[in-house]
């Protein structure tokens, strides 16, 4: 046996030994790695709420560990390796950018289960991916935005130009355009998930251009804080979390990511040994995407309309991407009455017709 393989085997053997030791404690260890601080009151906060729900459900039978603000890249690989060595039975990697690291670490620890949020790579059988249909919530927001804007200018703070985000922008714009043909959308790319200063700057720039409804795909409350300074002229939405502190305005509604049911279910499956590889994409129907309270800053009629749309999406009678829809370049995408296949959405790298500007290439 070559020296190299020998050492590798030794390392693996050691790790398995430690993994075994953790099992002997008869407690299941669920670990979470977050891209931002859990105090961001948005994305990471909401995942952590899911973690706490696991603790609440199983009490003493489960032990939690987590690491906040882990950059996507080499650091994530080290953190997850440490977690796996430290006896974690299941590791939830809660950001898109952990994708390659999750798969690399998962290969070295076949007995540890890995759950990767919003990813699509499942290179070994112990990796599952899960995602939420945020675009369903974006459609409801688009409806509100289209009706509420007085300047006919609405804005969207994009994080990274990945299909997930592009999908949200398209869903938001399509609904707004449907109820208000004069609406114009400006998109600002922040190239970050969490950076309150950058997010505030983006919001500020849009407000100066006359935008009066702002949606954000970043994790902090900074865009709402910026909107709050406008004296009621600018409204926005809670993103990932309810962001109820900004009720009733500027936060007029929100998309709440409710990961708790999924986390409780998956940790439970690890405990009773029924965990298997899945690729889940749940939405309003399953309760993974929730529409936060629509406040009184919205006229009652519009509120009812938005709630009706939410219920129609939940019932499966309405799909936010229903044809005819053309791509930005004028080519056909969906024919009359056709709904978007999931594959198209998950790889979405184009704007729909009418959106100005380019996706960064």
């Amino acid at each position, binding site marked *: 046996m070559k*020296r*190299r*393989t020998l*050492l*590798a085997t030794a*390392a693996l053997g*050691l790790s398995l030994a*430690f993994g075994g030791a953790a099992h002997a404690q008869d407690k299941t260890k669920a*670990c979470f790695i977050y891209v931002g*601080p*859990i*105090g961001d009151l948005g994305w990471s906060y909401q995942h952590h709420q899911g973690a706490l729900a696991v603790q609440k459900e199983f009490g003493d039978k489960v032990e939690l*560990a*987590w*690491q*906040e*603000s*882990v*950059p*996507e*890249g*080499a*650091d994530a*690989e*080290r*953190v997850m*390796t*440490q*977690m796996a*060595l*430290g006896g974690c039975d299941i590791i939830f990697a809660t950001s898109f*950018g952990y994708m*390659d690291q999750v798969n*690399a670490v998962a290969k070295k620890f076949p007995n540890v289960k890995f759950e990767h949020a919003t990813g*699509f790579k499942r290179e070994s059988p112990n990796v599952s991916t899960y995602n939420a249909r945020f675009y369903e919530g974006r459609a409801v927001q688009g409806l509100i935005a289209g009706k509420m804007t007085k300047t006919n200018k609405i804005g969207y703070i994009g994080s*990274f*130009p*990945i*299909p997930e985000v592009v999908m949200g922008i398209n869903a938001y714009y399509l609904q707004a355009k449907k109820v208000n043909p004069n609406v114009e959308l400006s998109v600002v*790319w922040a*190239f*970050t998930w969490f950076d309150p200063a950058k997010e505030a700057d983006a919001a500020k720039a849009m407000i100066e251009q006359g935008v009066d409804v702002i949606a954000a795909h970043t994790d902090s409350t900074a865009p709402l804080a910026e909107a709050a300074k406008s004296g009621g002229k600018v409204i926005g939405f809670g993103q990932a979390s309810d962001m109820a502190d900004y009720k009733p305005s500027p936060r007029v509604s929100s998309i709440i990511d409710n990961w708790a049911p999924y986390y409780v279910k998956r940790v439970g499956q690890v405990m009773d040994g029924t965990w298997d590889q899945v690729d889940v994409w749940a939405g309003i129907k399953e309760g993974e995407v929730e529409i936060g309270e629509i406040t009184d800053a919205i006229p009652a009629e519009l509120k009812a309309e938005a709630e009706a749309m939410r219920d129609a999406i939940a019932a499966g009678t309405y799909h936010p991407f229903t044809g005819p829809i053309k791509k930005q370049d004028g080519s056909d995408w969906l024919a009359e009455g056709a709904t978007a296949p999931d594959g198209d959405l*998950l*790889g*979405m*790298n184009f704007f729909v017709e009418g959106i100005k500007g380019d*996706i*960064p*290439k």
Partner: protein
Amino acid sequence: MLKLERRPTPSQFWSRATPVLAVALTVVAGGIMFALLGKNPFEAIRTIFWDPLFGEFAWYLRGQLMVKAGPLILIAVGLSLGFRAGIWNIGAEGQYIMGAIAGAALGLAVFPTENRLIFPAMVMAGALGGWAWAMIPAILKTRFNTNEILVSLMLVYVAQTVLAMASTGFLRNPEGAGFPGSRNFSGYEAARNGFLWEGAGLHWGGVMALATVVAAYVLLQRHILGFQIKLSGQAPRAARYAGVKPDRLVVLCLGVAGALAGMAGLFEVSGPAGQISIDFNSGYGFTAIIVAFLGRLNPVGILFAGLLMALTYIGGEMAATNLGLPSAAIQAFQGMLLFFLLACDLLTNFRIRLAKREAH
């Protein structure tokens, strides 16, 4: 009443003792902070400083220490040459990014050719990319007398934009289903910067960092150029009389720092990070400034400072995961280290005397 009195010459003793004192004070103040957060301070400090080196998983973490310290040392040594000569390159982060992009671009351009020369060529390209990016502030300074602090710093933000363009555009993985980010080098043997042996933690970047420490030490101690660098920093006028050409020194110091930062970027992108992605840079270029000063701008000092910094990162992560410390507390802990170092530096140049209160 305490009184500060300037020393006639900087104290040799305190110049060496302050890093140790700063670490000690950080441990005490950090311990108090951890205690206030309701954690056992001794356990927290042990987790940060002891466990990564001698704990249960030290066999893995010791290697990771070098992975983390390697780029810091490589960049910091380059920066220290300039800092000694009074040339303030704050933009190593940008040079690091551009080196990574240049080197990765070469590797990706020849994908999937397998040839032993590909990786060395990528290292050269990485150095060249970082060097070229550093030449912008260098030439602007020598030709138009612009401030290299501002120019090099601003170029970091330009480099980040180029990085975003690279990962969403010209270096994007054609098989990545529209997602940003380049191909992963881990699957490309000829271009991969793997560990020298499995689980070693030492990749070519680490080797390069160690070699650079030795080279810089020799340069500063034994070479006329090292003498000129030191002289320019301590007595710019005297340096000019001694025949040092300041412009040449600016180009040289920025160039070396840029090339080393560029190489660090290449080693990272082809090794631990694996691919060009939008947020590939994680602040090594800025942290290296701290490391350079923590190491007293001395190559050997920087070696230890880099390892210490890496220890606080890795130990800090462990403390966060195992003890539930918020990551902000770990960052504050690292901040304390720099703060105490700067505060203790006072002792190098000043003496503290007890003085009687003077009558008004």
